[in-house]
């Protein structure tokens, strides 16, 4: 990106001043090297989002921002329903409530060394992964609606988890005000046998080791010590969310003129929050959030079964579960008053700070765990939210490393088998049904996750707590 297009507000904050049809300025959080490498499309997209009706404060992009659909991936924007604010299907994305769940195992590196290979093979055999895989349960129409209303709570009530898991999940495991009736038959058909599947693409399940702590107090609160083994699960709402995204994107694109919304890009398709279409999408999207929460709960159950067999001394406890493709109704202090806003985070993670009322007692003093997935060869991070009022972008942070190269280019550049062998030589065991999928997800196709996280911390978006390194990766 050309730095001449931007006004530097501070070392890690770059503004695109309000101009033309922009209603608010756009702000990108990044270090100078990250912003130089950032796709010019991020500039266009973050500027376009600033033109949407009812947008509040600014259109934001996180340090891992890259070219998305309408919104940049790594985009954050909040809208006020009382000021004609909109809700955008593109601003949430196709994989509604895609997110990360982190599980403690209660084990350290020495416990798993001897069984690492078997652990990888057993997880790969038991976790439905890759194209066309199906889950262990097939949902009836009644079960489907109950799942879409109840989320992870529904799964726990069915015996797939522990009641205490729920307090470590956003929304206590259940997104309220979901409308299963707003979800089409096609979306439900697509999901019929996909619950409890990992998916493909950038989704994964990893066994990771805590290798470094940055904030001892927060790490202690999160129960993380150097050498600890955790499980990290990255996946979303599967076919149901994809179909809801597809259908509402189209309807919003067709109906936008009827609502008097002129779109700088058709992909920004949106509807007034107060409109019937806006409310239908909101209800369907919330149902998809429940689907993602239930999905990660079922996967947690499968992981627990595998550990119970191979490492019975393990006790898998949820550290946290946070989504990075959502639109949520939240209260924020803006210009000295509290406003209720619809906050879109597309490839961005909520990062509530210490004292936030939605956090469970055990986490309230430290703040919300912010789970950042890197690429399979590098590492992941656990961050914590900063105190509200001190945290910009409506308490949001980055979500991952962000791609540096297209799948097309990665597929041409790397050979999947070679990537697996190179990682194996570095002690990382990879299992995947697709070698081409591995090539497309090669570590080199991603930005440096450490540079992204360092920029997020320096910009005040969140603070670093721990770094994790992968040992086993089951890749979709």
């Amino acid at each position: 990106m050309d730095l001449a297009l931007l006004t530097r507000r501070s070392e890690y904050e770059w503004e695109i001043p309000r101009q033309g049809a922009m209603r608010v300025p756009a702000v990108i959080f990044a270090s100078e090297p990250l912003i130089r490498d950032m796709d010019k499309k991020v500039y266009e997209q973050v500027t376009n989002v600033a033109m949407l009706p009812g947008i509040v404060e600014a259109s934001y992009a996180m340090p891992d921002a890259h070219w998305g659909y309408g919104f940049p991936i790594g985009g954050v924007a909040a809208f006020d329903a009382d000021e004609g604010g909109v809700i955008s299907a593109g601003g949430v994305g196709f994989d509604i409530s895609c997110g990360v769940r982190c599980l403690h195992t209660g084990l350290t590196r020495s416990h798993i060394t001897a069984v690492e290979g078997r652990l990888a093979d057993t997880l790969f055999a038991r976790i439905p992964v890759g194209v066309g895989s199906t889950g262990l349960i097939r949902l009836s129409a009644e079960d489907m609606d109950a799942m879409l209303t109840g989320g992870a709570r529904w799964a726990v009530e069915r015996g797939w988890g522990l009641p205490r898991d729920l307090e470590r999940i956003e929304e206590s495991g259940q997104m309220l005000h979901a409308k299963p009736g707003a979800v089409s038959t096609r979306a439900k058909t697509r999901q019929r046998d996909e619950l409890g599947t990992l998916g493909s693409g950038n989704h994964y399940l990893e066994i990771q080791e805590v290798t470094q702590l940055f904030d001892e107090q927060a790490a202690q609160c999160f129960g993380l010590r150097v050498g600890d083994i955790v499980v990290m699960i990255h996946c979303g709402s599967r076919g149901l969310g994809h179909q809801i995204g597809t259908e509402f994107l189209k309807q919003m694109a067709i109906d936008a003129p009827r609502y008097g919304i002129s779109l700088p890009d058709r992909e920004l398709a949106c509807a007034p929050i107060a409109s019937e279409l806006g409310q239908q999408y909101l209800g369907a999207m919330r149902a998809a959030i429940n689907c993602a929460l239930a999905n990660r709960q079922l996967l947690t159950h499968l992981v627990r079964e595998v550990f119970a067999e191979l490492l019975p001394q393990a006790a898998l406890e949820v550290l946290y579960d946070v989504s990075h493709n959502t639109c949520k109704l939240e209260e924020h202090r803006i210009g000295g008053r509290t406003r209720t806003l619809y906050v879109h985070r597309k490839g961005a993670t909520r990062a509530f700070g210490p004292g936030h009322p939605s956090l469970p007692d055990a986490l309230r003093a430290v703040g919300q765990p912010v789970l950042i997935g890197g690429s399979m060869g590098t590492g992941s991070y656990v961050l914590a939210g900063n105190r509200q009022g001190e945290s910009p972008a409506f308490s949001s942070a980055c979500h991952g490393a962000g791609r540096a190269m297209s799948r097309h280019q990665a597929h041409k550049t790397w050979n999947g088998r070679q990537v697996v062998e190179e990682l194996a030589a570095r002690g990382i065991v990879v299992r995947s049904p697709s070698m081409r999928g591995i090539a497309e997800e090669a570590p080199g196709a991603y930005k440096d996750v450490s540079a992204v996280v360092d920029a997020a911390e320096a910009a005040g978006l969140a603070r670093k707590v721990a770094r994790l390194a992968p040992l086993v990766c089951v890749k979709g």
Partner: protein
Amino acid sequence: MSRWEHFPHGADVGVRGIGATKAEAFEQAALALIAVMADVATIEAREARPVECEAPDDELLLVEWLNAIVYLVAADKMLFSRFSVEIDGPRLEAQAWGERLDPPRHRPAVEIKGATYTMLRVAREGDSWIAQTVVDV
């Protein structure tokens, strides 16, 4: 002269169909879509599925068409290797020939979440038509 190709997008893949007619370009774009998931040469045209869709303009129709194929792949667990498309104004009618997904043989790389409106274009260029968009994987 009909053919398909992929083009790069930041995080995902662009699919482009080129043909003598708009319908042929749509057929080729669907092949490009399937090729994101698996090698088309491994897919046998054993059974047909009818597809019908409708949209207010050519570009939205392309997205509808590709998303109809994405749906069939996901809901019926099928892959396709041959398409026959007829377009009449806002309406599209087609047959898609393929077979049930067989992972060991088809070795699918990735599933497609949906066709997007990014770099979406349906247009005549000289003697041929092109139909393209980016798909989210």
